[in-house]
């Protein structure tokens, strides 16, 4: 079935290394996106007209542009036009954070405006000042709504990292392709075995994350 190839030499290690690269890039991007997304979402909820227009434009760009195009622009475009050479991994992190911040910001804004005014007021009416109201009443509610939504975003980011092989990064899918190329003659079914393994690896990473989100959603709903 082609699985035997994986046990030849360092093949399996190479797949795992590829997975490691993909996870590293997505985790760094997720971290940046969460922090910047919280700031962006809070700013957007303030309903300042200038911020509203700018963030609308930003979100539209992110929605319209395929991530691949963004990757090419940052990795190839910037070095051509401006002479700045951005390494492939950094380009990937920039693009994924650019995308993730927009999505995260939108989620945070949605959660913030979904908390009814009366929640703030009933807290004030109990003598809680603004900081305590946010700390004990508003933020816990926002986090409960946000976590399942942002986990969904995280798994999508992990899956989308397969695009980064287009700018030469050897992540798990690229490593798999290399292994297939090298072993095509000796084992005719290598493609099946390798892709099945890659599938399994993605599954092993994303499945526990989405289970966690389901669990949290149930507990907090």
């Amino acid at each position, binding site marked *: 079935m082609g699985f035997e190839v994986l046990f030849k030499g360092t093949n399996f290690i190479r797949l795992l290394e590829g997975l490691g690269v993909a996870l590293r890039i997505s985790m760094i991007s997720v971290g940046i996106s969460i922090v910047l997304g919280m700031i962006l979402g809070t700013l957007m909820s303030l309903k300042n007209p200038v911020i509203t227009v700018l963030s609308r434009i930003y979100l539209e760009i992110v929605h319209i542009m395929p991530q691949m195009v963004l990757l090419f622009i940052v990795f190839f475009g910037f070095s051509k036009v401006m002479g700045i050479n951005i390494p492939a991994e950094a380009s990937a992190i920039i693009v994924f954070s650019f995308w993730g911040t927009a999505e995260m910001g939108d989620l945070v804004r949605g959660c913030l405006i979904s908390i009814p005014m009366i929640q703030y007021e*009933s807290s004030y009416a*109990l003598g809680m000042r603004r900081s305590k109201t946010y700390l004990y009443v508003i933020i816990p509610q926002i986090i409960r709504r946000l976590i399942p939504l942002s986990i969904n975003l995280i798994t999508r980011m992990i899956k989308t990292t397969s695009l980064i092989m287009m700018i030469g990064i050897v992540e798990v899918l690229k490593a798999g392709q290399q292994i297939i190329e090298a072993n095509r003659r000796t084992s005719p079914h290598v493609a099946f075995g390798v892709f099945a393994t890659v599938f399994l690896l993605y599954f092993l990473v994303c499945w526990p994350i989405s289970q966690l989100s389901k669990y949290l959603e149930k507990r907090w709903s």
Partner: protein
Amino acid sequence: MNREKEVLKIEHISKGFDQLNVLDDISLTVHEGEIIVIVGPSGCGKSTLLRCLNGLEAVDDGHVYLGEETVNPSVKNITRIRERIGMVFQSYDLFPHKTILENVTLAPMKVQKRKRAEVNEEAKKLLERVGLSAKMSQYPRQLSGGQKQRAAIVRALIMHPEVLLFDEVTAALDPEMVREVLDVMLDLARQNRTMLIVTHEMAFARAIADRVIFLDGGHIVEDSDPGEFFTLPKTDRARKFLNTFTFDTVNKEI
């Protein structure tokens, strides 16, 4: 208790939103142990008046005093003042991520810095008194509307407020749950609490009020004792308003 003591003093307050003048030169003094029921047509400013009393809304003109202190959202000790004024709203406003017990104990612990053990003990006593012992560790979504409102009343009571404000606390309830909440308020009345109650339940208003305030067009149109107000209102406007709660027998055409 001292019936002469002035708890809340409202002096010539006015309040508008944009073009709309909602409260126009309202004055009212609330004495200790007094129960004042405020009635009036929808949109006449009843909620706005209550919200001005605990500084959720700023008055444009005039003053509100709680004892010696000025009540206004912009004063520095407004949170201190709000501790002394309990308010229960029309919508169920419990904190959904906290259990009933946690809802009740949050403010005494975080605002008044009272000890958990002492607060828990008082919370349990109060919840028991309103029939919610069995619901303490449940979340608001597991409770009926009437149970949620009773819990919200306890959440206000545990702060030991000097005056309680109720803004149509039964208006959003199914009819069969109205009674259980009104009973809790009647129980508070027997404890000589000072209360300002906005309600559309006229029979209840008549039973509980020491004074009835009829608010219309931004003014206090009547300020009378309940017997007088409900049988012989002084003004046409009050009579018209009270008529909206009664129905004539339908005479069918033959």
